[in-house]
């Protein structure tokens, strides 16, 4: 049996498929219930009840929504570019799922344990612009076009500071592998020594996922729904799900880079009994709660303020902090001493599968 799964082509493919589904199915459920959770939390913030009709505590609400959206008509505007119009939501949603291939859920448990896992995530997040840009252009509607352009410029602006923050973390790790990033936090989570970077990263994550208070691209009061205005039915649903999947992804990334991923907060008995994946999920839930909390609390930014914050505050600040971190590590000799080692391939990779 062991031999079949690790040493034959078919077995390895089935194993990988099973692993991928084991990550993606809970993720999709998580996305569905995040929409429910957000409505409940927002309701609590505004002293309302939130969805409570479908099922106990409204727990069947996501399924009711899904069925409703599935049976709605897909309206494709006459002047739109049909193929691109349908590709855009598919791309947005698929990218949010593809990124999960490298997220480690326990020590060494990543479906794809890449040497360059951090770069992979950075690359995937830099592709998020396309879904929005293509949607805005393919709709051939003014609101959609304006929303798409704004959104693209916004995501691009905050991407730079995200990159600089990641470099800052990598300086303390000495490896691009995500599992190594977590292992480097055994003694202290990076959110403590790199606290300002943690804040910059979280706010940039809000901007990158187009969440309030940076949800200008879909600002209802001026752009109706921005790049999504012409979408209906499940092609709208895919944008919606993609946004929430991206939120979970950014939360997972925050947890991995700054909150020790699957590590228990203290390396002592009662904490270490709880398995790593549960810690990761708990951390992701906490960050997601803050995402929603922020939405319930802050007014929307104006576009010039948004660009100013990205280019004139975060960019110079994170660059300076990165140089300071490097200088500090150089001066104190705290740099990771043996960086950049290729990780030993796990048993799966050593078997010749092809």
């Amino acid at each position, binding site marked *: 049996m062991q031999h079949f799964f690790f040493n034959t082509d078919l077995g390895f493919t089935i194993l990988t498929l099973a692993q991928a589904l084991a990550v*993606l199915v809970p993720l999709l459920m998580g996305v569905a219930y995040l929409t429910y959770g957000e409505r409940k939390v927002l309701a609590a913030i505004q002293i309302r009840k939130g969805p409570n009709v479908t099922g106990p505590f409204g727990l069947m609400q996501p399924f009711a929504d899904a069925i409703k959206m599935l049976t709605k008509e897909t309206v494709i505007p006459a*002047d739109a570019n049909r193929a691109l119009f349908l590709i855009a939501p598919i791309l947005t949603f698929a990218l949010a799922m593809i990124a999960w291939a490298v997220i480690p859920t326990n020590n060494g448990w990543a479906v*794809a344990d890449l040497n360059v896992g951090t770069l992979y995530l950075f690359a995937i997040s830099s592709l998020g612009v396309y879904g929005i840009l293509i949607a805005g252009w393919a709709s051939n509607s003014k609101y959609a076009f304006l929303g798409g*352009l704004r959104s693209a410029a916004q995501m691009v602006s905050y991407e730079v500071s995200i990159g600089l923050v990641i470099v800052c973390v990598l300086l303390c790790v*000495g490896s691009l592998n995500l599992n190594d990033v977590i292992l480097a936090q055994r003694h202290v989570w990076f959110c403590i020594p790199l606290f300002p970077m943690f804040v910059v990263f979280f706010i940039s994550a809000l901007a990158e996922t187009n969440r309030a208070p940076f949800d200008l691209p879909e600002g209802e009061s001026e752009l109706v729904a921005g790049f999504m205005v012409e979408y209906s039915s499940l092609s709208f649903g895919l944008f919606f799900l993609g946004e929430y999947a991206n939120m979970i992804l950014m939360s997972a990334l925050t947890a991995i880079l700054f909150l020790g991923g699957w590590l228990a907060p203290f390396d002592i008995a009662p904490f270490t009994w709880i398995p790593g994946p549960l810690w990761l999920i708990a951390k992701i839930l906490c960050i997601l709660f803050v995402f929603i909390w922020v939405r319930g609390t802050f007014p929307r930014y104006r*576009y010039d303020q948004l660009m100013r914050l990205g280019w004139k505050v975060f960019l110079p600040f994170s660059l300076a902090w990165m140089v300071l971190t490097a200088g500090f590590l*150089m001066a104190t000799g705290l740099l990771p001493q043996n960086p950049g080692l290729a990780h030993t391939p796990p048993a799966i990779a050593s078997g010749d*599968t092809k």
Partner: protein
Amino acid sequence: MAPVINDYFPVLVFVVIAFVIALAMVGGSLLAGKQKPYPEKLSAYECGFEAFDDSRRRFDVRFYLVSILFIIFDLEVAFLFPWAVSLSRIGMFGFLSMLGFLGVLTVGFIYEWRKGALEWE
């Protein structure tokens, strides 16, 4: 057989699954929903009147400027990645080398700041 490419097989699996799910959702809604198009429904959203002209038109040049500046800083970050994972091996020389590089770019950054390229109103 390169071990590197083995590592990427799961990525391929994820890509396939993700696109299959997404396509199934769009395809499912196309099949399940009643399609009853008529010209008014298919016209682009506007506040009640016909759109004057094509929506794809010349746009504010500052969007280009933002994306050019983004390319430059993205390249800067790309140079920082290998530096971050090899800093303790290349020592003080490598550190100063990067400081020089960043210094040159900071000059450019200050220039664009002073010229007001980062201003939006």
